[in-house]
């Protein structure tokens, strides 16, 4: 019996919920993405997006509690690289009105913080919170792999 492609092309990473460990996750996901021949500039975008998602999980979802964990699930599905970043949901994600644009923030109309989700939406092909299997927040983002060079999975 053949193994489903999604199992052959998936990996899981679990990190301490501590600022700084997102850097390790960046290097892990870059190595994973390189396997699919994704262009170097898109891998840099992917690393930035993962960093922002991990920092959100550590700072907000896990409320900077170092004994908690951040789980990252990566898979290739239908020519898209899909990444789930899951925290413990100490602070559940709540949509708070329409966020200020980066231009407004730079103009001093609001805090310079809170640009992570905007950055993620600009760099990834798809991003947002999805229903997870547990109580935590599950943030999913995807990158289309139209830049693959044809190397094997």
């Amino acid at each position, binding site marked *: 019996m053949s193994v489903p492609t999604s199992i052959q092309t*998936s990996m899981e990473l679990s990190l301490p919920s501590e600022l700084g460990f997102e850097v390790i996750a960046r290097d892990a996901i870059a190595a994973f993405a390189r396997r699919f021949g994704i262009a170097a500039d898109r891998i840099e975008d992917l690393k930035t997006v993962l960093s922002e998602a991990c920092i959100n999980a550590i700072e907000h979802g896990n409320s900077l509690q170092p004994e908690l964990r951040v789980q990252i699930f990566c898979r290739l599905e239908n020519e898209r690289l899909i990444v789930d970043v899951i925290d413990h949901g100490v602070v559940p994600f709540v949509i708070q009105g329409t966020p200020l644009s980066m231009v407004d923030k730079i103009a001093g109309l609001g805090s310079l913080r809170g640009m992570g989700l905007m950055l993620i939406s600009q760099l990834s092909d798809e991003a947002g919170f999805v229903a997870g299997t547990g109580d935590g927040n599950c943030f999913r983002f995807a990158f289309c792999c139209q830049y693959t060079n044809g190397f094997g999975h």
Partner: protein
Amino acid sequence: MRDETPQRAFLEKVIELRLPSKLGYERVAMDTASSLARRMGFATDRVDSLKTAISEAVTNAIEHGNLQDAAMKVVVLLTAREDELIVSVADQGRQQLSQACVFTRPEIGEAFGREDKGGWGIWLIRELMDEVEFTTAPSGGNQVRMVIHLEP
């Protein structure tokens, strides 16, 4: 025996990586481990040794322990302590590692005469890491525990 005092345990930071049993994924383990080791302050040559050792361990787990069954996972645990990095690589034990393999010391002269030039992985791991131990994983698979010390 591992020191499990509360103070010591508090200092441990564990990263867990679960990879499919498919050749090529050892690169992900290598890059993750080297990223952690660099940030812990290991010298470049020690990071290179670590990358080679982890590559050999994961390749063995994929090829021999899991017999390249991609549905089976290889679990890599990276435990960062103040003065050392512990790397554990476990497979799901489709094939048990024989004790004879664990202590093999290949001879290069003899290897030249063989069609299959392989069989250097475990020897390399022992040469490159400060401590190496082969055990059975809680899941029943093969497990190699490697330690590299952070020298001041």
